């Protein structure tokens, strides 16, 4: 009887309204989700102090690994710009003439893997050293020039550290080259430290992501406890688990998203606070280093991560909790 009644209802609307019958279910579905999204926001708004605290905790938790990531990225840029200045010194045998030395430098300069090769004669080397070191008088006391002639080789800036190492090994085999050295040991250590920090950032990031999942999960668990009666009523009225779950999942999404936004704001604040002093520091080193913040893709990745973690935290909790609540 009720079915027949509904059938009459279905035919009642005018012809004009009946046309988009295919779109109607989709609209209803989208509408239901949009309603849940807004409703979840409304729920957070009603208990805004608690929600705000949760969001801040999530924000700080997300900001820590992200900040570390940005730090590593900045140090990476810094070290890459330093790598471009790495030079290998080829110390020539004493019996190599100036002419042969210059020929060697020209030959090396022609190679693809080498950006530049410059011959510095023993005399030029001594002169430079005299000016730079201030040991002029002591050098005058020496009977002969103790310095060898050198070919200063600048490897191609795009080369990896391993390739540069191989290049230096082959240069060591050139005739007339007594020793070849790469002033890179300190850079190697810097890179090792950097990769350590990067690894640490990942580990901390994973741990703190898990923390966000648990924070959201716990918040949703409390939310479900507070709404036990409401959930019972909904179940009595014939609401499916999916229907009851939906607003909670969207709460998780909102928590994650607003936490990520707070993290972005915190990071922005930190960079603004650090940029001034860092500028002063780098200027004192005659280097113009700009602090690089999160770019657009990084920012979006943070927001997406926040949403995903919020969703996960909620999904892990909500199914188990809702199954526990049955009308009595």
């Amino acid at each position, binding site marked *: 009887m*009720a079915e027949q009644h509904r059938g009459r209802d279905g035919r009642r609307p005018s012809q004009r309204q009946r046309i988009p019958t295919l779109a109607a279910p989709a609209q209803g579905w989208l509408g239901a989700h949009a*309603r849940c999204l807004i409703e979840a926001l409304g729920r957070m708004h009603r208990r805004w102090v608690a929600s705000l605290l949760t969001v801040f905790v999530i924000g700080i938790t997300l900001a820590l690994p992200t900040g570390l990531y940005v730090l590593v990225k900045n140090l990476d840029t810094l070290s890459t710009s330093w790598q471009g200045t790495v030079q290998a010194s080829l110390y020539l045998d004493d019996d190599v003439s100036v002419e042969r030395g210059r020929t060697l430098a020209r030959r090396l300069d022609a190679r693809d893997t080498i950006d530049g090769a410059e011959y510095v004669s023993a005399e030029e080397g001594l002169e430079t050293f005299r000016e730079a070191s201030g040991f002029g008088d002591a050098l005058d006391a020496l009977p002969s020039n103790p310095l060898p002639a050198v070919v200063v080789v600048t490897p191609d800036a795009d080369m990896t550290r391993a390739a540069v190492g191989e290049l230096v090994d082959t240069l060591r085999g050139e005739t007339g080259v007594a020793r070849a050295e790469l002033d890179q040991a300190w850079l190697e250590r810097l890179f090792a430290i950097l990769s350590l920090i990067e690894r640490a950032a990942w580990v901390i990031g994973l741990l703190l992501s898990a923390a966000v999942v648990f924070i959201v999960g716990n918040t949703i668990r409390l939310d479900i406890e507070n709404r036990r009666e409401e959930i019972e009523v*909904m179940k009595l*009225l*014939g609401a499916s688990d999916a229907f009851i779950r939906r607003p909670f999942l969207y709460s998780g999404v909102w928590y994650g998203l607003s936490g990520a936004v707070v993290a972005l704001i915190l990071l922005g604040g930190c960079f603004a606070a650090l940029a001034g002093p860092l500028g002063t520091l780098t200027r004192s080193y005659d280097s113009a280093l700009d602090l690089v913040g999160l770019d657009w893709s990084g920012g979006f990745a943070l927001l997406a991560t926040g949403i995903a973690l919020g969703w996960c935290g909620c999904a892990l909790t909500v199914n188990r909790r809702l199954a526990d609540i049955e009308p009595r």
Partner: protein
Amino acid sequence: MTDIVAFNHVVKRYPGGKMALDGVSLRLARGEMAFLTGHSGAGKSTLMKLIGLIERPTRGQVVINGTDLATVRRRQIPRYRQRLGLIFQSYNLLFDRTVFDNVALPLVIRGLGHADIARRVRAALDTVGLLSHERKFPVTLSGGEQQRVGIARAVVDRPYLLLADEPTGNLDPALSADIMRLFTRLNETGTSIMIATHAIDLVQRMGHRRIALDHGHLEAG
């Protein structure tokens, strides 16, 4: 199948051994209105819970609107309940939502469109005489008004069976009579109704069929 409710030798024993229903058989015809009476613990609530699939019988068969409830799986329970109208002693309204939103809930659950919902909710509120209160919150209403909101919510989706568990348990006699008259009106439009109640004198005055339970047995009906 003319019976909306059919209990065949239904036994319900709760874990712990309490015998709530002991071999109850009864029928409620389509369009009929009946009162379920008996002292506390006689099994009225258990009978209601079996119909609402809140509990399952230990033995026996419950057939509602032609469906043997033993064949309704857990996942199908929500859809089954959507076709029932449940009314509670404590009204079970959601206090953070307006009267309108409370009444609309069954339709929202079923996923109806906005215009359809508004039209049906207003019709249901009109039936219970609360159309002017749709924007209010339940706390601002009296007990009788809150129960009428509960009734509007139960009838808004045109259920084939209205089940009311002590609907007037928290109301004074005058309001109780009001609510009962409302049930009679709903019954006159064709809805089958089963009302569990303590209010024997009210039931006797109304003159509808009375199903009496005593310690899990059917006494009269």
